[in-house]
């Protein structure tokens, strides 16, 4: 459903992505791993419409995304859970979730989606009117995921959801992501935490310095030499 061919994206004066091609099939959970500064956030933001492409093409659900205005991406079915959450911190949990369903087609299903999200993350029920900036990191991450789900996406993008979270919470987070995927929403996950990501994904890509240096089934990637080299600089 999502097909990126040879895309190039700039970050300020620098080229962050040089020649990235990847695809996500309907219902899949795909991850993109790689060290810092590999371009992972730039990639996710480009798919969400926040960074324009300076080369290559992006096709989503058979629609060429070239020239589509940034605020229309959500309506087409792409929802973003950005790096470090980026909640509307001065607003309550409920307001954040409501804003997730700002677009008309999501607004119509707002009550229903809200119940679904609260079932997925029960602890939010008590925090529903609390200012979201006062929640713990893990809870904020839940709100961020919930907000994206409220938009009723067909493709959910997650940018380093484990960042800054305690290991135990990371496990819960990834369980939730798996659950969301099992209900039919395609997921593209970008992560620094390789083991966790490859554990829940079916396929993966390794991004290094703006290029894809390896791709394949999750299991194969985990112990591959490319990952060792990319992350640790170790050559065998």
């Amino acid at each position, binding site marked *: 459903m999502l097909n990126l061919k040879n895309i190039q994206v700039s970050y300020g004066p620098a080229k962050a992505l040089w020649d990235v091609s990847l695809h996500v099939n309907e219902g899949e959970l795909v991850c993109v791993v790689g060290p810092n500064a590999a371009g992972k956030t730039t990639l996710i933001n480009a798919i969400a419409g926040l960074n324009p492409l300076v080369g290559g093409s992006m096709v989503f659900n058979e629609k060429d995304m070239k020239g589509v205005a*940034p*605020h229309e991406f*959500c*309506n087409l079915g792409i929802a973003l859970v*950005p790096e470090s959450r980026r909640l*509307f911190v*001065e607003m309550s949990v409920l307001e954040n979730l*409501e*804003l997730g369903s700002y677009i008309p087609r999501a607004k119509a299903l707002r009550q229903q989606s809200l119940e679904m999200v609260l079932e997925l993350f029960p602890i939010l029920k008590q925090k529903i009117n609390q200012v979201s900036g006062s929640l713990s990191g893990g809870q904020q991450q839940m709100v961020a995921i919930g*907000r994206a789900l409220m938009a009723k996406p067909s493709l959910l993008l997650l940018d380093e959801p484990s960042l800054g979270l305690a290991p135990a919470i990371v496990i819960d987070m990834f369980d939730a992501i798996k659950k969301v995927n099992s209900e039919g929403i395609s997921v593209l996950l970008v992560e620094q935490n390789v083991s966790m990501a490859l554990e829940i994904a079916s396929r993966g890509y390794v991004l290094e310095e703006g290029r894809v240096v390896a791709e394949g089934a999750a299991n194969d990637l985990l112990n591959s030499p490319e990952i060792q080299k990319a992350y640790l600089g170790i050559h065998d």
Partner: protein
Amino acid sequence: MPSLNLLIQSAVSGVLLGGLYGLIGLGLGLSWGFLGQINLSHFAFVFLSAYLSFEFVNKLGIDPLVCLIIFPPIFFFIGIFLHWLIRRFRITPFNSLLLTFGLTVIIESFIQWIWTADFVKLQTTYGDKKASIAGIYLPFTESMAFIIAVLVAVLVHLVMKYTDLGKAVRAISQDPKMATAFGIPQAKISLGIAGLCTALAALGGVCVAMIYTLNPSQMYSWIGVIFAVVMLGGLGNPFGPLIAGVVIGVSEAVTMVFVNPSWAPIVSFSLLIALLLFRPGKL
């Protein structure tokens, strides 16, 4: 030692005047808080509306309350048009200050060209009406301005808090990129806010015309008070400017009881300076 009655009367006048400050400050604060623009031309539009009210009432015999209803929508569209025009150029926030400065001078000159630098006053029967409670006078015009200010603040607050649109506006000011990611059309909403601020200027202008004698260069003397009101009350906060306005209005009024009234501007300008020094940045 001034009498208690005089003090209370001053305080009450200060409160009522504070309402007007709050009304005018709201428009400025909204565009500063949500559009990131310091719009000096806000004052020019207030005075333009004031002079137009004078014209309509004195020359065409229209009731000032009618002006209250027909001016805001017209100014709403003027505001949208201007914002749209300026936005095409992508200028820095500081340059927008300079630009609105230029716009202010143009409007001021235009006003002076048509209505001359002579003092003018809107004549209406409302001007004479006043209520009296326990010996304290509540002039009709000032009270009306105060009530309008309160109503507007309440309305804006309700919209901001309870409607999707209001929440979208707040989201845009906190994190415009994320708001866009969730489908909020930032560009369109910004236009709407710009229009709203100009409409509020129009509303304030009609009130100013009903209360004060007008003179073109007077608009600059409001700058200190209103900026102090906005900075004290907080940007983008519906009730902030109102409360701040009342505080400042009362302090000014009470000060004037004790010293020569021409010292009054010092209160607000000094407060503004103090605020800028001790609480700069977004409040």
